[in-house]
């Protein structure tokens, strides 16, 4: 088996998911601003050219400047950054996403080119163009921005709900997967919300407008908050489309995910209440501070939502194709037979700090199988999670990892490697004592092997699917 080993970097006390999550949230939020912003500008251009809102034109040029300065720089580069940080986190995941969907990425790229060129054309020449040309450029920009979402959404939703693709490997089966439409519509509404809230901030920074004009513009912008009314239904549709086990993590199965879901719902609810009661109902004026606060709430909602979307995929990065630690289900049995790090060409960097070969082996196994989501002593650290378990408890729980926690992948190494990992955790829990005898009892190895065999090589998700298939047969 030619397993693609990659060098693994240590992020210190931080887990890689936090880095990719942090960057991802900023990218998604800025991208939503650009997508919703395009639609909002078309609306304001229509208001301006139809004479319905006199200050709309001046606002439009200022708002577009904000889009160019924020979205064209931060949005574009955090997009590239997502790509690069995904390579750092899970090179195999992004590799599979490229292999399976490179033409989709390239289609998205053609829309991105259209977006950038029409965007700059409007930014540079918009004030000198007539209404028809301005509207045409804005419509082209909006179409391009929204279609960028359309194409990327297909790939991101495929990661959680690959649908028929798992069996057929057909591109379009994967792209138009079960959560594609609810996810796309939900993100469209979210983009409109973000754009409206950002508009309220921009309106307040434009000194050229008097109070009356600002009130007019804010009320017009708040029309873009109306689609928020559909969010609960779209959210329910999305949750109905995702796999039952993923749904259960968010709805109580995992405290962290439930809390983040609560954050997303709570922040959205607050924005929705303010929008419908304050802005649309009582037509309240909104100052810069309140607008910024609502934007911060929208960012919190985005953060919560993205965390849940990423989290409910566990134990996979691509459901039923690739585990979080970049191992496929079909490779587990072979890695258990030959040892998961036997052929790993990359040595341990600080090998001298480990007291024995067994501990060095444990460190290598940790790096290969656990390091993507865990640290030793930092965030989600194994010492904190498993340090208090008895030695045999550690052996059994890790050997039957997918049963210990259903969102964990199966352990994919030999019994000797598992014992080395257990010894590493114990050694680290004891604060790295200078003497640490090797654990080489054949009886222990045999027991671990028995537990590994009992656990099987499939994830709980796959085992449940197979059981239900057998039941229906």
């Amino acid at each position, binding site marked *: 088996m030619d397993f*693609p080993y*990659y*060098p*693994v*970097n240590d992020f210190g006390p931080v887990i890689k998911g936090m880095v990719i999550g942090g960057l991802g949230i900023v990218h998604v939020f800025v991208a939503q601003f650009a997508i919703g912003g395009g639609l909002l500008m078309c609306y304001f251009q229509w208001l301006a050219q139809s004479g319905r809102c006199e200050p709309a034109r001046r606002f439009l040029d200022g708002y577009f400047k904000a889009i160019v*300065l924020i979205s*064209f*720089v*931060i949005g*574009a*580069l*955090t997009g*590239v*950054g997502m*790509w*690069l*940080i995904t*390579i*750092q986190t899970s*090179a195999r995941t*992004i*590799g599979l996403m*490229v*292999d*399976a*969907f*490179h*033409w*989709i*990425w*390239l*289609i998205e*790229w*053609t*829309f*991105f*080119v*259209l977006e*950038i*060129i*029409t965007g*700059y*054309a409007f930014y*540079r*020449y918009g004030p*000198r*163009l*007539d209404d028809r*040309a301005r509207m*045409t*450029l804005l419509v*082209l920009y909006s179409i*391009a921005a929204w279609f960028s979402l359309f194409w990327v959404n297909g790939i991101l939703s495929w990661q959680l709900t690959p649908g028929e693709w798992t069996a057929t490997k*057909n*591109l*379009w089966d994967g792209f138009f997967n079960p959560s594609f439409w609810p996810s796309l519509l939900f993100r469209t509404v979210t983009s409109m919300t973000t754009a409206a809230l950002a508009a309220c901030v921009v309106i307040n920074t434009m000194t050229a407008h008097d109070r009356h004009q600002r009130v007019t513009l804010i009320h017009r912008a708040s029309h873009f908050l109306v689609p928020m009314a559909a969010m609960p239904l779209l959210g329910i549709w999305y949750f109905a489309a995702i796999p039952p086990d993923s749904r259960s993590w968010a709805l109580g199965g995992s405290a962290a995910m439930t809390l983040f879901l609560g954050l997303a719902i709570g922040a959205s609810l607050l924005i929705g209440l303010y929008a419908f009661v304050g802005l649309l109902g009582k037509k309240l004026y909104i100052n810069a501070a309140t607008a910024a606060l609502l934007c911060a709430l929208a960012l919190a909602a985005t953060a919560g939502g993205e965390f849940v979307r990423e989290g409910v995929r566990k134990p996979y990065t691509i459901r039923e194709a690739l585990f979080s630690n970049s191992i496929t289900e079909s490779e587990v049995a072979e890695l258990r037979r030959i040892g998961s790090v036997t052929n790993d*060409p*990359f*040595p341990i*960097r600080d090998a001298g700090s480990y007291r024995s070969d067994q501990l060095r082996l444990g460190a290598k196994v940790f790096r290969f199988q656990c390091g993507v989501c865990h640290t030793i002593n930092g965030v989600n650290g194994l010492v904190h999670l498993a340090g208090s378990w008895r030695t045999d408890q550690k052996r059994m729980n890790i050997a039957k990892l997918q049963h210990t926690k259903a969102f964990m992948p199966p352990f994919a190494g030999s019994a000797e490697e598992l014992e080395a990992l257990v010894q590493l955790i114990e050694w680290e829990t004891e604060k790295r004592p200078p003497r640490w005898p090797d654990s080489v009892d054949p009886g222990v190895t045999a027991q671990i092997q028995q537990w590994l065999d009992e656990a099987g090589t499939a994830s709980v998700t796959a085992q449940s699917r197979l059981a239900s298939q057998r039941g229906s047969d």
Partner: protein
Amino acid sequence: MDKPFPFGFPPPTAFYLSLYIASWVVHVAFMHYVLAGTAYLVGAGLAGFIQGGARAESLVTRTLRDWMPFAVSMAITAGVAPLIFLQILYQRQFYTANLLLFDRWMAILPALIVGFYLTYLLKAVRTESWPAAARLLIAIGAFLCFAFTGATWSTNHVVSLKAGEWACFYESGVLVSGVPRVFIWFASSFGTLAWLVGWQLFALQRRALVVPVGIVGRLAALGLASVACTALAVGMYYLYADSRTQAAIVGPLALPYLLAFIGGLLIQAVFWLAALRARRLGALCLWVASAGGLLSLLGVAVMREAVRLRDVDVNGLFARHADARSVGGLTVFVTFAVINALLIAWGFRLVLRGLRRHSLGAASRVL
């Protein structure tokens, strides 16, 4: 590998290699504009600083300041397509080099963000009244950000070729340097900048703006110096390269492209000499110079690829490329690529018409 590129490879490999090279050349043209353009702005800023800010801004400097943010945006956008093809062609090599470079590699993101914003600052009307030293510092900052990004990409490329040393790099944290190759890029970037700015000035010329003879001379000097320095840098690279690298460059795969590269440089040199003599920028000459510039970029791109193909287990990659080619979506891509290209062309037409109407309106208001 015993036939000229892209022949001699299985069709899927040849297909992706060709697309990679084509998209990469477009990216490099924009990248050259940004790298050499910001270097030029540093030079102009330095001249302004030495003369105590009394020096009037040249047409080239003004054009570069005005268009630099758009050029950065296009360089980044145009870089996405070759990045995707690169991952299909050499996935393991590229990802491993990314991981080995780690923090330095990730540092290109903040560097690009800072560099990008500095170009906006250079363009801003408000900074025109700033002291010459401040504007010089902004230009230096932007240039360093883009130079760092370029040098890091170059190192990434070199590391990706050294599969036998990856474990050693990982353990020691010491990587090979891509700096010698950077000189080739830096030298050639001024040639590309010269003909791209030539087009921009030509457009101004057509709008009845007189391009001073001194400006044409400065561009010609830039173009000619670039041609000479590029030839020198490539020659030195070849002389100091190991025999396998030399064999790859003059081997059957890359030899026609080595000749194309030399031909491209000669065409550019002849054009700039002609422009110097004519003391103006003509469309035909600019077309010829652009063709020469693109030819030399294409030549150097294929030579670079020949060296890479010599270093990787290319036979092992053929199956991967065939698998990638079997994935659907190409027809839809071509369809949308054509539609979006037409929409972009329509957008251009709309803007040109609108501007014409606007200037006519302004003229009639004056009358």
